[in-house]
């Protein structure tokens, strides 16, 4: 080997050393960048016997990345569902109450607790039917029950409207992420063709996919030219060379029975009952589940309770040979002239009110509770106590019986179709709390999985400062040796030239 070859080796060594130092510096600079994949300089022996950094490998791990995005999607969906259900569960939140040690009115604010209070008030009224304060107490308990159904119904509507707004902002985020993805993907494709370092562009792509997974469940594939395609977890294309348009029209007001708009990806509906390929995960799927399934189901249960109440407190024709139809009594809805069918109760929970004829604050007569005739005061056909006896308890006992009597409910509301009003209201509370518990558990679980997957990914592809420092020391030593070599070869040259 000639001395000039030695020079060549030295200069390639210095160049390789510089390239590796750049890699180490880059790694150290990004030690705290989430989602950064560490780089490794691949050193090979060149034709002179020296060394070259032939390429830089990005320490990616597609499998773990996929796991991170899947678990992130699941966690985001469950989180969205859990948030919505927590708000629904507030309508039945009785946990602030004590164990009812001091009688009624201690049971919280749920329709179920209000129904129990009404039953208690009626029981007290039955013991003192001549007491107008007992009658007033029944009317006010009934009024509380109606308001609690109204406010629960309003909460459901709010939850659905919030979910609708969240869907709109989620769709906005998805579209903007897809646009960012386009430029990152183009950078990778062009970079690969020109042989440039695409690590940073690939990091950006991965980070966008992870952010996208928050909003909508995704899966990805990479084509031979390095272009990455994104599909929803249900298989609809979100990005293939160009982004597909995700569109959604928000509905600002979602009253009971109204359906919100659907999200479409490139024209294919991905939410709603009629979607051929509904998305399964991501916050968007969670919001859609709340808006389209869970909240409406709870609303239907509230409507059933309201319908059941109006029917239970309805007044029948008391004539010897009844001919007149039964009419709404204590509970009614504005302008109602007949008892509602239990199969068409939409909107009742929002509209239910106590009959003004029995409400003293609206000029009504609370004694009609005992005597009957709330539906049509003065009409003898609907009067249960024709003599006006002050201690007549037949009607009051009848009403108490109606609350605990088994009635039929619409099975499509998701609860047992044959139950007493009390049991049905309790079953509805159980339903909400069970859904809330499940969503909360699932959310904690998926969050734990996502954290685990993120840690695993970070350990597989992240930077360890100590390792980089060790590399740095190696490089320092190698640099020092090379410099020493250079000095030695130079002095050899000098000696050679002086000898000459």
């Amino acid at each position, binding site marked *: 080997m000639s001395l000039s070859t030695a020079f060549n080796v030295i200069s390639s060594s210095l160049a390789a050393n510089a390239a590796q130092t750049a890699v180490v510096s880059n790694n150290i600079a990004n030690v705290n960048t989430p989602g950064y994949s560490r780089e*490794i300089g691949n050193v090979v022996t060149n034709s002179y016997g020296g060394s070259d950094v032939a390429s830089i490998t990005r320490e990616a791990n597609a499998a773990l990345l996929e796991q991170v995005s899947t678990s992130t999607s699941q966690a985001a969906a469950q989180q969205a569902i859990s948030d919505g259900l927590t708000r629904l569960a507030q309508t039945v939140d009785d946990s602030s109450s004590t164990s009812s040690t001091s009688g*009624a009115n201690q049971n919280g604010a749920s329709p179920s607790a209000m129904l129990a209070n009404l039953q208690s008030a009626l029981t007290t009224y039955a013991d003192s039917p*001549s007491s107008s304060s007992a009658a007033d107490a029944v009317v006010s308990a009934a009024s509380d029950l109606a308001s609690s159904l109204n406010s629960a119904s309003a909460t459901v509507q709010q939850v659905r409207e919030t979910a609708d707004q969240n869907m709109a902002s989620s769709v906005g985020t998805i579209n903007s992420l897809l646009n960012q993805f386009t430029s990152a993907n183009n950078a990778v494709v062009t970079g690969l063709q020109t042989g440039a370092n695409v690590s940073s562009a690939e990091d950006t792509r991965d980070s966008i996919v992870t952010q996208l997974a928050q909003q909508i469940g995704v899966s990805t594939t990479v084509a031979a030219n390095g272009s990455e395609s994104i599909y929803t977890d249900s298989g609809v294309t979100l990005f293939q060379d160009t982004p597909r348009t995700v569109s959604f029209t928000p509905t600002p007001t979602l009253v009971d029975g109204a359906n919100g708009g659907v999200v479409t990806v490139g024209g294919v509906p991905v939410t709603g009952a009629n979607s051929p390929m509904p998305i399964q995960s991501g916050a968007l799927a969670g919001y859609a589940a709340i808006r389209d399934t869970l909240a409406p189901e709870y609303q239907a249960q509230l409507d059933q309770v309201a319908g059941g109440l109006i029917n239970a407190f309805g007044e029948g024709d008391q004539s010897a040979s009844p001919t007149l139809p039964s009419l709404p009594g204590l509970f009614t809805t504005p302008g109602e002239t007949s008892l509602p069918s239990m199969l068409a109760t939409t909107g009742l929970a929002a509209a239910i009110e106590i009959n003004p004829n029995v409400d003293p604050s609206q000029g009504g007569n609370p004694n009609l509770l005992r005597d009957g005739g709330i539906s049509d005061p003065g009409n003898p056909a609907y009067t249960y106590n024709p003599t006006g006896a002050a201690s007549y308890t037949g009607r009051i006992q009848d009403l108490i019986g109606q609350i605990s009597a088994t009635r039929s409910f619409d099975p499509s509301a998701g609860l047992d179709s044959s139950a007493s009003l009390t049991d049905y209201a309790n079953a509805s509370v159980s339903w909400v709390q069970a859904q809330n518990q499940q969503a909360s558990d699932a959310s904690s679980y998926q969050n734990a999985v996502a954290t685990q997957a993120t840690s695993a990914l970070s350990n597989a592809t992240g930077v360890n400062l*100590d390792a980089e420092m060790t590399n740095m020391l190696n490089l320092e030593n190698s640099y020092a040796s090379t410099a020493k070599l250079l000095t030695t070869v130079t002095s050899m040259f000098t000696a050679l030239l002086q000898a000459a």
Partner: protein
Amino acid sequence: MTIVGANFVSTNYLANSLVGPVMQAQSQLTNAMTEMSTGQYADLGLQLGDQSGYELSLKEQVGQLQTLTTGNSVVSTNLSTAQSALTAIQSNAQTTLNNLAAWTPSGTSGASLQNMGQSGLQSLISGANTTSGDQYVFGGINSAVAPIADYYSTPASAAKTAVDQAFQTTFGVLPSDPAAANISASDMQSFLSGPFAALFQGASWSTDWSSASSDNTSATIAPGQTVTTSTNANQAGFQQLAQAYTMLSEFGGSALSSDAQQAVATAAASLVSQGADSMIDIQAGLGSSQSAITGANNSMSSQLTILQGQLGNLDNVDPTATATEISSLTNQIQMAYELTARLQQLNLAQYLPVT
């Protein structure tokens, strides 16, 4: 040198690995503190899930039993009031009976018969019009109206008018008329058991005497247990006593002959005795309702204990377990803080010689 597999830990992960567990422990600690201070689960709904409805139904049962127990005290008060009024009526009847037994016809003895009748009738009427709260206890369900109108009112009550009218119809004179002295004992007897007795029965009774309803009030004293909680002034006892006292009051001090007065006294004694007996029967009936209420209260109180025990099982946290949880969480958090501080020291750069 390449490090792979489980041995490789990224510095970012190492630095942040304790953040998650610390936050989780802190939120658990908050819950545990709440549980410690309230004795109940921090979020009951989340804890119970689909048991929530069952828990609510237990609470409702507790509330229902408490309402019934409270209501029973109102009913008991009404019943006790009725009982003491009945006792008074019954003892008055007994006194009258004793007085009648001691009575013998003489010149002025008519006035004492009349006094007996008058005071007896007044106390019967005031007894029958006893109120408890705003309810007349002997009114049946028609508890807002005094069951028996004042006999001695001015203008003359319907009852008084009807009595005078019946006497006039039968004998052609009023009891105070001197001509009434001609009425024989047997005529008087048949008048008393005939037209006069009819005034205290059936439609005449409800028209002239009683505003009470024959329907008694009833109350639910325990779930599914309903008892009659009043009696009413239409019971035979009230009619018999009213009849006896009225005949004494109206015909005792009248112009009747001694024989006829004797007939009045005899008829009255028999009615008062029957009336006193039926008062005892009525009291027995109410007494059985009272004992039913006592029994119901006892059984509801033991049910309440059981139900509240069940509720406690669902709602309450074990204070010992919570205390242990709090101390172990506090330890965990302290440990995590310490570790975080130490991990920050674990950095190769700190140990390299400065050149």
